[in-house]
């Protein structure tokens, strides 16, 4: 036993898979300690806030300021404000008025602005340009000039008479230390369509999904193992009946069955545990079949005959003479069942047949939400890509562990 374990951990494939899986598990336990709270709490009002650091504007305004005179501050400001369309329009203006734009890069804000300041004249009317377009250029020019001007933002509040009273002013050279701002929120993966912190949700969802996978794998392996053992060892009519049932389950596509059962249970009754059970109940067949064939080859071995001659009971023979021989195989099958259980949950939830949406997030549900709110078409990659990556990592690590085990237990089949 000890020796086997040592061998297993000597397999590099198993080790890599194991480390990835343990890292995921550890994240699931440690992250909620660092960042406690309900993962389904809607913190944002809008949908799909980008990943990043959020600073409370209110608190920032009330924070004591320092004056920093930074030479490139204006340009940076402008660069953030000039949209891509503005830049393209500026180039259009240049070409309409015959300015030489050889070698100009529109993402180079400095060069673009320098050229603009040198050449823009509101009085010029390029041929074929509409009045509206000329007005757009005037507004653009004004905006660019405004950034350059020494401007001050006045903070005002309604006073006693209802009139605005100046409370303070913010100049362009005012800076606050982020550390002194009372409310800063880091959202590494932004928010989803309901304004929920994606990272927090993801960690919680990965946990739920793994639990669903484990439960489904456990149910499938237990059913498959016990039916396989019975049908393989006892044989005869028992074998016929079990194989009949197994064949029925095999013939009906498992996923269709899964969809039908999930649908008939109804949204309200579908908790995570019920979904896991349903997945387990539809995926035991291949475990059963392969356990059966292994048992059939084992039951004619002489050590089983000898055990019979020693008067051991059927139960004892199965437990001590059959089960240990297929244990490594069952562990491998279990790992694969867990992996496919997680994937089955994701598939079901993506179709909207997963667990109830109000209680816990699962990886499949997160994908479902992202899809329903068109995250994939509006460019909100953070709402679904990390989820896909997590699912991939989990099943990759599980399959890697399985391959590693396979190499250890069946060395002759490989190499």
């Amino acid at each position, binding site marked *: 036993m000890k020796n086997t374990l040592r061998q297993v951990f000597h397999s590099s494939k198993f080790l890599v898979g194991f480390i990835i899986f343990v890292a995921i598990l550890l994240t699931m336990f440690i992250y909620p300690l660092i960042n406690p709270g309900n993962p389904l709490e809607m913190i944002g009002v809008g949908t799909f806030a980008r990943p990043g650091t959020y600073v409370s504007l209110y608190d920032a305004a009330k924070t004591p300021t320092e004056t920093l005179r930074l030479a490139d501050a204006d340009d940076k400001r402008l660069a953030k404000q000039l949209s891509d369309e503005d830049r393209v329009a500026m180039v259009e203006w240049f070409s309409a008025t015959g300015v030489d734009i050889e070698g100009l890069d529109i993402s180079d804000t400095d060069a673009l602005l320098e050229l603009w300041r040198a050449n823009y004249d509101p009085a010029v009317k390029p041929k074929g340009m509409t009045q509206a377009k000329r007005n757009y250029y005037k507004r653009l020019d004004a905006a660019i000039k405004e950034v350059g001007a020494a401007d001050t933002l006045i903070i005002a509040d309604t006073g006693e008479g209802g009139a605005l009273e100046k409370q303070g002013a913010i100049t362009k050279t005012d800076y606050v230390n982020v550390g002194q701002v009372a409310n800063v929120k880091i959202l590494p993966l932004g928010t989803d369509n309901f304004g929920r912190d994606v990272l927090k949700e993801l960690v919680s969802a990965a946990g739920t999904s793994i639990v669903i996978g484990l439960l489904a794998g456990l149910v499938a392996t237990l059913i498959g193992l016990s039916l396989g053992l019975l049908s393989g060892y006892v044989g005869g009519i028992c074998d016929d009946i079990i194989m009949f049932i197994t064949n029925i389950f095999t013939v009906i596509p498992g996923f269709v069955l899964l969809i039908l059962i999930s649908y008939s249970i109804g949204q309200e009754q579908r908790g995570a545990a019920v979904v896991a059970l349903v997945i387990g109940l539809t995926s035991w067949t291949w475990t059963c079949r392969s356990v059966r064939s292994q048992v059939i080859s084992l039951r004619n*071995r*002489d*050590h089983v*005959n*000898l*055990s*019979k*001659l*020693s*008067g051991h*009971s059927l139960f004892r023979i199965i437990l*001590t*003479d059959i089960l*240990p*021989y297929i244990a490594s195989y069952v562990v491998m099958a279990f790992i694969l069942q867990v992996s496919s259980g997680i994937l089955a949950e994701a598939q079901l939830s993506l179709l909207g047949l997963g667990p109830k949406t109000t209680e816990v997030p699962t990886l499949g549900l997160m994908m479902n939400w992202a899809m329903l709110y068109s995250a994939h078409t509006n460019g909100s990659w953070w709402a679904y890509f990390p989820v896909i990556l997590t699912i991939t990592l989990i099943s990759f690590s599980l399959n890697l562990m399985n391959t590693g085990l396979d190499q250890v237990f069946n060395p002759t089949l490989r190499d």
Partner: protein
Amino acid sequence: MSETKAIRRDLANAPSCLRGEGVTRYFHTGKITTKAVDHVNFDFHEGELVSIVGESGSGKTTLSKMLLGLLKETDGKIYFQGKPRDISSRAKLKEYWSGIQAIFQDPFSSFNTFNKIDTVLLDCINMRGGKNLPKEKKIEMMTEACSFVNLKFAELTNKYPFELSGGQMQRLMIARIFLLKPKILLADEPTSMIDACSRATILDMLLQLRDEIGMTVIFITHDIGLAYYISDSIYIMEHGKFVESGPADEVILNPQAPYTKRLISDVPKIHEPWDLSTV
């Protein structure tokens, strides 16, 4: 020679230990029926060493499983110690198994690799009703059994069977029989997977054991030379039937059935020329 003949006469008068009348086993695969064992009659006497000789596919393994009660016979009757064998219930089967035991061909698959050697031997003591014996007594019994087959129990304890060589494993099997002391021992090719050099040791121990506890040995083999060497009587099996049976000397030196004649002529010999022109 005269001495062996005298012994043989004794055996013929010895009480019957295992007798079969029209023992048959068919296997059905789809519509095809295979007659693995087809209405065989036999009578094994107490203390006799009987060989059942047949080539692969002759049905000798099926017959041995039926004799052991591991396989139900399709037809026919088997008498154990003169009375019809009754293995209808688990308790009766267990009772029967205390009277008949086996040694199998492949020592490497005869042991459960997850059980220690101690477990194997303790099992035998428990089976003989020694479950409540004090621990020292059990160890004494195991040590005795191991020393009978030239193994040292102190070196074997807490080891697993796969740490032994094939010959040692087969000796351990004999130690197991020594503890069980059955009336009948069914040895299914016990030396075919063992090197020629260790074969003599195994055979010697089997014979010693037979003398010690006076059991009947049913020796199943494909090696007609080996069968001739050790048996009192030989049954030749072909396609599920006994084509010839009788005392070893008569069957081998003066075969009557064409199959026996062919079998003996096809085996290469040392002193007699091997006639290749007959094929």
